Structure formats: C-alpha cells, structure tokens
C-alpha cells in the first residue's frame, strides 16, 4: 500500500517536517527530526530507483486526478537517479549539520535553519519528480526561496548581500521559466510534460513555441549558473553557512541541469532543440567558456570556498558541453557527471565545513600545515580533489572519459583538448591547497586544532569514498546514465 504512494511521500514527508521543525523551537530537536526525515527521503528515493529499474517508468496521479488535468508525477530512470542524488546528499549533509550549524548560526535561529533546509530539500525533490511543468515552477520557487533564506543565514554580513543578489537573479530566472510555460500553454493548452511532448512537434514552427524555448533555456541557465549567467553563484556559495554550500553545490545546480535536460529532450525534443534551434552550438560555446573561465578564475582565489564555487561553474560547463553534443556518449557524460560532481563537490565542501568548524576560516593561508593537524579531513579533501582533476580510478575520470570520447566522436578535437587542458587547471587550484596543507609549516600563532568531530567526518569521508568507489565500479552510474540518455534521445519521458 505504502509502496504505491512512495512518489507522493517523497515530497510530502520533508514538506510536512518543515513546519514541525519550526514548532519544535529547539535546535537539537529540529536537527534530529530533519535528519530522520532526510534519511527517510533517501530510503524512499532508493526504493523508487529500485522500482524503476525493475519495472520501468512509474506514473503517479496526485490526488487521483487523471494525467492531463491533474498533476502527474512521472519517474523514469533519469529522475529516479536524480532523486537518489538529491536525497542522498541531503541525508549525508544532515549529520554534519549539527556541529557546523551550532558553530555558525545563533541558537534562536537554528530550528528555522532546519525548517528552511527541509523546504529546500522538498523543492528539489519536487522539481525532479514532477511531470507537470507548472508544478515544476512552483517547486523551483519553493527551493529558491528556501535557499535565499539559507544563504542569508551565513555568519558574514556579506551573506545578506549575496542572498539578495541570488534572490534577484533567481527570481528573474524563475519568471523567465514561468513566461516560457505560459507561452507553451497558450499554444498547446496543456501543462503535462508527456502531453506537451506529443503536441509540440506539430506546432514547432510557431513563434510562441520558439520564444518559450528561449525563455526556458535562459531561465534554467540562470538557475544552473551557466556561464555567463553565473554571477550569483560565487558569492552565494562563499558566504552561505558551510553545510548549505555543500548541499546547494551538490544538488541545486544539478537539479538546474536536470530541468534543462528535461525541457530540451523530453518536452521540446532533441530534433527541435538541436536542428531547428541552434542550442547545440550555444551550449557548446558557453560550456567551453564556462570551463575555461571558471577554472582560470578559480586558480586565483585565496578563499578556498570561493575557489570551489568557481570550480562549480567550470564543472557545470562540462555538463552543458555533454548536453551540447546531443549524442549518447555526450549525454552519458552529462548525466554521469551530475552524480559524480555531486559526490565530489559535496565531499569537498563538507571537508571545508570541517575545516571551518575547527579553524573558523577557509582562507588558504590559514590552512598551512593542516594536513598534519586534521589528517582525515585533508585526506578526504585530496581524494575528492583528485576526482575533480579526473585522476584515473576516481569518478572524475569516468566523466572526462565520456566527454572526450563524445567530442572525438563528433570530430571536435579542439573541444577534447580544451576539456583536458581545463582539467589541468583543476589540478593547479586543487594543488595549491594540497601544497599549503601538506608542505607548509603553520605559523607560530596558529591555533592548535584537532580532527573534526566524527559526526562531520564520517559523512564527508563517505562521499569521498563514493568518489573512488564509483570511479572503479561504474556499473550502476554508467548503466543508469546510458539508459537514461538513450530514452532521452528517443524522446518522450
């Protein structure tokens, strides 16, 4: 009985927990509830993935209303996989949150933090699970509003500025998506993705359809921080509380990429997007620019969190690049990298959360000699960093391999070269941290610090372990990504 309603529970459970967090009025209680809920959501997502892998795509009618009129939750391989990523990161971040939040956020605001966190989780899960474009917009805004709040809770006052900037750009992005949805509704009279996909091919010559496509791509581009629409991201990630950076970096932009993929391939169809509209060329150019500019800027940062934020922009460029090839291998690269990047950025930001918990700073200079004082944390950082560079036997290598294979398949040698060169830039910025942490002695007046508490360390190491495990055993990730890519290219959800 319950298993029938898993799709609804996936969203409803965290949604209900949010007001409960507020009612609990105590940091610890709210944390406990949020942690339990996050793990429940993770369990649900795993159950859904198992169902989808064994029985194929699921369709759930919200409130029992039939599909084109009511809201349909539709779960295929792609979004089942996404659900696992989002819920999994949420579940791993929560144990870390207790110590980190206790240090960074005033006691009277802590329960509110967890409430906002649960709302953000709800929204992200909702975006991924829904098969209705307007519902997607609503969930998008739920996540966004919760994220603005979460970012604003950062200790530095610049967090407020970052949050406002994020709010303005995020709202513009969401409104663009809203306009696009409106235009689509105008010509098709439906909001259901499957319905839209069936009707658009006959209407694709119409100008509103093309305008809708442009609005949605730009709106999604803002949400996923595609260069040059990334301006909100560096500040937001730098000044947000540590666990929020970890959670958002690992999930929010990925969900943005998912939205883009969903609209391009499922709603509009690859033929429309790549043959009638010049999306391939645009995404390729922007993706390459993102990869180069993001990596280059990251090299020159002295705040490690900001460095990782710019690195995220570059990594999003890789995903855009993967989509731009519109080939199986390209899409596999994009989808696998969604997962891989979530794991490695999650691990990196959580490692920084540990560092911040002990040091109170994530400036490069403050991290001198940290390899000796916080060996496990820094080892985790190095492992995840290696992944980012794309060293063999880590997840980054897998993504890179598919991306370069896709580029060479399409005969785009220069693209392959740029991808590889950019991974060297990743090496440069990761190595700056390694060098400081392992081969510099701390200042005389540096505070004596010890390893971070186990509650923070274990999830961080689990994510780093995932970076290595899924770099060796790729059956699950590549398998799911390949099937998802095939079904996306065939069109239809």
């Amino acid at each position, binding site marked *: 009985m319950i298993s029938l309603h898993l799709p609804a529970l996936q969203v409803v459970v965290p949604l209900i927990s949010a007001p409960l967090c507020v009612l609990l009025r105590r940091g610890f209680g709210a944390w406990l509830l949020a942690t339990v809920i996050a793990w429940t959501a993770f369990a649900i997502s795993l159950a859904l993935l198992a169902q989808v892998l064994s029985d194929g795509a699921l369709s759930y009618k919200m409130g029992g209303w039939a599909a084109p009129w009511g809201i349909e939750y539709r779960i295929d391989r792609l979004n089942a996989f996404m659900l696992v990523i989002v819920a999994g990161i949420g579940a791993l971040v929560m144990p870390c949150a207790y110590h980190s939040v206790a240090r960074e956020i005033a006691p009277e605001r802590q329960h509110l933090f967890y409430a906002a966190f649960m709302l953000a989780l709800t929204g992200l899960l909702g975006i991924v699970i829904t098969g209705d474009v307007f519902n997607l917009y609503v969930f998008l805004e739920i996540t966004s509003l919760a994220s603005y709040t979460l970012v604003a809770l950062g200790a530095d006052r610049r967090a407020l500025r970052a949050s406002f900037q994020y709010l303005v750009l995020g709202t513009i992005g969401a409104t663009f998506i809203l306009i696009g949805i409106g235009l689509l509704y105008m010509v098709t009279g439906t909001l259901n993705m499957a319905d839209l996909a069936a009707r658009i091919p006959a209407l694709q010559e119409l100008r509103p359809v093309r305008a809708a496509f442009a609005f949605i791509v730009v709106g999604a581009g803002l949400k996923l921080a595609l260069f040059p629409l990334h301006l909100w991201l560096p500040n937001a990630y730098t000044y947000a509380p540590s666990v929020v950076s970890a959670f958002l970096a690992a999930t929010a932009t990925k969900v943005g990429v998912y939205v883009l993929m969903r609209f391009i391939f499922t709603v509009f169809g690859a033929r429309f997007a790549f043959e009638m509209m010049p999306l391939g060329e645009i995404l390729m150019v922007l993706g390459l620019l993102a990869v180069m500019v993001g990596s280059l800027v990251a090299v020159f940062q002295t705040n490690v969190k900001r460095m990782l934020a710019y690195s995220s922009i570059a990594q999003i460029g890789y995903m855009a690049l993967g989509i731009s090839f519109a080939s199986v291998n390209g899409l596999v690269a994009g989808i696998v990298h969604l997962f891989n990047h979530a794991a490695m950025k999650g691990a990196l930001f959580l490692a920084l959360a540990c560092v911040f918990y002990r040091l109170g700073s994530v400036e490069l200079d403050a991290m001198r000699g940290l390899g000796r004082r916080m060996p496990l944390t820094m080892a985790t950082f190095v492992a995840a960093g*290696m992944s980012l560079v*794309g060293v*063999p036997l880590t997840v980054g290598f897998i993504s890179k391999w598919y991306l370069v294979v896709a580029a060479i398949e399409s005969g785009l040698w220069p693209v392959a070269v740029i991808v590889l060169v950019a991974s*060297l830039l990743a090496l440069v910025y990761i190595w700056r941290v390694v060098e400081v942490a*392992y081969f510099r002695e701390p200042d005389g007046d540096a505070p004596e610090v010890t390893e971070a508490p186990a509650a923070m360390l274990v999830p961080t190491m689990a994510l780093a372990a995932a970076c290595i495990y899924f770099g060796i055993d790729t059956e699950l990730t590549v398998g799911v990504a390949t099937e998802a890519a095939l079904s996306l290219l065939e069109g239809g959800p």
Partner: protein
Amino acid sequence: MSAATVLLLAPLTPLAGAVLMWLSRRRPNVREAVTLATAVVLFGLVASLYPEVAAGGRPKTEFGELLPGLVLAFEVEPLGMLFALVSSFLWIVTSLYSIGYMRGNNEAHQTRFYIYFALALAATVGIAFAANLLTLFVFYEALTIATYPLVAHHGTEEARAGGRTYLGILLGTSIGFFLLAVIVTWNVAGTLEFSPGGILAGKAPPWLVGVLLALYVFGIGKAAVMPFHRWLPAAMVAPVPVSALLHAVAVVKAGVFSVVKVVVYVFGLDLLAASPSPEWLVYVAGFTVIAASLIALRQNNLKLLLAYSTVSQLSYVILAAGLLSPLALVGAVLHIGAHALGKITLFFAAGSIYTAAHKTEVSQLDGIGRRMPWTMGAFAIGALSMIGLPPTAGFVSKWYMLLGALQVGNMVAVAIIIVSTLLNAAYFLPIVYAAFFKPEANPPAEPGPAHGRGRVALHGEGGDAPPPIVIALTVTATLTVLLFLFPGAALELAGQLVEKTR
C-alpha cells in the same frame, strides 16, 4: 600459487607493506624491517613468474571492468617482466640504502617517505604488468601522484617549486596528450589491449598514425623527451634514494617502457615502418641525447649532472625503438636494464658522498676517491657503463643499438650514438680522474652538526659512508659488471619480444 594470483599479489604487496609501515610508524626499526621484508617478498613474487615467461607463457588476469569494454587487467610479457625484475630487485637494494641515508642525514617525515616509496613501487609493478593501455595509464598516473610527496619531501620553497614542476609537467603531458591519445586509440581501434603486431594496423590513416605517435611520445612525459624533460632535474630536490630508484629506475623507465610498449604493441613495428612518420622520432630522440649531454657537461651539481645524463640515456631507448629494427629493439630493452643498474650506482655514490662528506658539487670532489674508495670505485664502474665501455652492461646495450642502426642503415643514428658516447666520456671521466688523482682541497675538519648516529664511519672520521650505503652501491656496481658478463636472461627476454612482434 597460480601465476594469476601472483600477478595480483605483486602490486598488493607494497600496499600491504605501506599499511604495516604506517602501523609501525613509532618504531623505526620495525618500520624499516617491514620495508626490507616487503621488498624481498615483492622480488620473490616477481621472480617466481620468470620461468613461465621465459618458457613463452603469458600469465594473465583481469581484476575489474572500469567501463563497458574497458577492463583493468595484468598480463606479463618479456618487456614487462624485465622491467618488473629490475625495479623490484633494485627496491631491495635501495631500501637498504635508504635506511643508511635517511638515518645518516636525520631526515624528517621518514614514515611518509617509506610509505610513498612503497606506493610508488606498487604503481611501477602495475605499469610493468599492464595488459592494456587503460591499466597502463591508471598506474602511470598513480606513480606520478605517489612520487610527488617524495619529491617535495623537504617542504622547502625549493622543494615545493620542484614538486610543482614535476607534477605540472608529468600530469600536464599525460592528461593533455597521453589520455587524448588513449581515447583516440579507443575510438579508432575499439580496443586498448596490447597485442603483438599492434591494434591500429588497418584502422588508422597514416596522418593519424603520425599524430598519435607524437601524442604518445610527448604525452609519456616520464620518458623525458625534450622539451618535456624539465621535471627530471626539478625532481632532484628529493632525497637521494628517491632520485636513485625512482628517477633513475622506476619512474623514468616507466616512461621509456611505456613508449616501447606503445610502439611495439599498439602501433606494431610493421605499421610504423610502413608510414613515413617515425623518422622524426629518431631525430627528436637524437637531439635530446646530444642536447642533454651538452647540458650535463656544464653542470657543477652532481645530482643535476646525473639527471641530465639520465635524460640523455632515456632517449637512447626511444631512439633505438624509433629505429624499428629488431636488433635495436634488443638494445633498447637491454638498455632499460643496463642504464638502471649503472645510474642507480651513480646516484648511490652521490648520496654516499653527501652523507659522508656533505659535498654536492662536482668541483668539490678532488681527491675524494682516496677517502671513499668503495664509493668512488662504484662510481667509476657506473660511469663506464654510462659511456658504454666494457666491462660494463652499458657496452652490451650500446653494441646492439649500433648494430641495429647499421642494420637499417641509419647513419644519423650511428653518428648520434658515437658523438654522445664521446660527450658522456667528457663529463664522467674528469670526475673519476679528479676523485682519484687530484689532491684534496680541504681535508675534513670537525664533523658537521647534521651528522647523526648513523654516521658510524666505516673507516673512522672522514671515511666512507655508513655500511648499508656501501653495501648497496657495491651490489649494484657488481651487477653492472655481471650483466656484461652474463647478459643471457635479459637477452632471452629481449629476443622473445622481438620474435613475437615480427
């Protein structure tokens, strides 16, 4: 134990050793005993594979599938056998040497040193046994990363800068060119398996063969073909045992080994001979041989001199492989072994001089041979081997290379080999001469502050280095001579390689 099990155990042994070393980090004696024991066990495992390989067997095992169609697998063939034998044997000697050196110089972070050393050896064995390009690439990168902490060991500004150059060039070339070449090969050939006769024949157009060859030769930066040789002198900031085993044997040999392996098993000699491209390979390698020798001629720092000499000697192997003649290929294979033994002896000697007399410059070595007869005697043998004079191993390998060059009638290669021999003599012989026949400038006064307990001098104050060091360098020098007198096993393996590929 079946050969497949041994294959898997071989790279796991140093890993297990590394764990044990970490566990015994508070007890240096235990830790060093573990190092030695691990090295001996590894050599035993590798050597146990020899009879089967010599009999023509090719033990093989798969241990993972990274991506559909891309497996991680080991397969021993003659070239890898030789490389693994040399590296694992010299690890025993180097471990012994390290103990004397690290204690004698009171180095810091010794546990880290031994652990990464073991990891580097695990990666080396992985490279030697790799059955396909992917496995080779994986271990190749692992070797680069495992050796970085050893290069930057001292943590000084100079060491960090050296480490940056090291990592930058090695990872830069491997990711920028090597990986690209691997992926293109995969795209074109549909397989990455090393197979006799090559996998690209009939699948890649001639222009692509040329491009790929360039990508491989320059992408395998560990082979130190100019202009990507800068990492090797930069790595000389590392402690001497690292320079000796890794930057004279394991790492650089991994480079030339990979190049030879790619030439033989990915391209195939026939494909390359049929395409117009390999001519330039001879020239590039020849240029490196001569240019590096000229630079070595001008070095005053002993380790830097040895480093440039290594750059030069490595390109012999590339040059010999580029000649595409079976005899030259035998020379290339032999040279991997011969140069390993000779160069490690030279580095051991340099470290011995540093430990006993704290001298690092060539100009300071006047008369030191009388104080350190064992060390400088070994040095002389190593130097003869580098020049290629009998009775040392270097003579045998150079002989085959010359024969190979004459076989294909490549007079340029002949000239390069002869000129560089003269150059080698020009920078090595004066050192030997000065050490034995010139009077000492400043006889040793008080022992320096860095002299630790390890400096239980063999011949009293101002004498030779600690016993482990002397034993180690005597062993390698002896082997250099022995390989000249009994090159049978190495020739057998090289002969097999040539036979199977034609």
